[in-house]
């Protein structure tokens, strides 16, 4: 299975990257953008998707500072991104 792990800074933790994006957008003429957060995307093929949560907890994220979500990449989508 091709999976995506979406990693985000935990709510309440200062996210200077998100802030920087939010500050930069109006200067480029993009208004009406709020609550920007910047995190990490990990995409991978796994034989055994059941082990993904463990991989996330142990390596791919730091649970003290990050939340994550696992998303399966549909076959079609995979094609378009790869």
């Amino acid at each position, binding site marked *: 299975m091709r999976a995506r792990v979406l990693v985000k800074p935990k709510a309440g933790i*200062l996210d*200077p*990257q998100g802030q920087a994006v939010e500050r930069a957008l109006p200067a480029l003429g993009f208004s009406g953008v709020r609550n920007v957060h910047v995190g*990490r995307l*990990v995409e991978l093929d796994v034989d055994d998707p059941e082990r993904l949560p463990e991989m996330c907890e142990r*390596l791919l994220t*730091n649970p*003290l500072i990050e939340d994550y979500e696992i998303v399966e990449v549909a076959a079609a989508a995979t094609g378009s991104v790869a």
Partner: protein
Amino acid sequence: MKFGIVRFPGSCDEVDAQLACARVGEAVILWHGDRDLQGVDAVVVPGGFSYGDYLRVGAIARFAPVMGEVAEFARAGGLVLGICNGFQVLCEAGLLPGALLPNTSLRFIFRQVELEVAESGTPFTRACPPGRRLSIPTKHTTGRFYAPEPELRRLEATGQVLLRYAPGHNPNGSLRDIAGVSNEGGNVFGLMPHPEHAVDPLTGSTDGLSIFESIRDTVADRVAA
């Protein structure tokens, strides 16, 4: 006494740490792939970019075989010092509380900063001159110390915050100006500034030497006891 300095792929300041330790004792390099601490009396997890800092600082290094031994050593009360990337690795390994986040400036910053010793008399600060600030370089992109609020209060109450950036010297946005913290047992200590780069009058200050002297004195006392 004998210091062991861990070398990961991507470590950069391990030779500097070895030179600094060699000023107060013997110092050997510990290879990341070996499960052998060579009978050292204290371990230094040095600065640099272990595993390229890829994924998340310290995240991959903490799984190196040698780190299992370091964790054992720490559980048995051995002295472990983590500098910069070493601090990040020890946090990831759960040997130290909290985590290090990107600097608020989002940039790598090199700066000679002044530090205040918040707890003197600990195994890592006992040789620091009382009441005097330490001038030591910092250099990192990911050094903003973070712990949840209750944890911060606990750390302060139990005297685990050993070093703080002096007012106006916090380079990274660390909460409560925290520059270095220890574990509950007081035998594992991590800091973002680089004391190994402040041990020679020719290259800057010598204020970092007192950290290594503290370790030496602590080990000497333990041997004597």
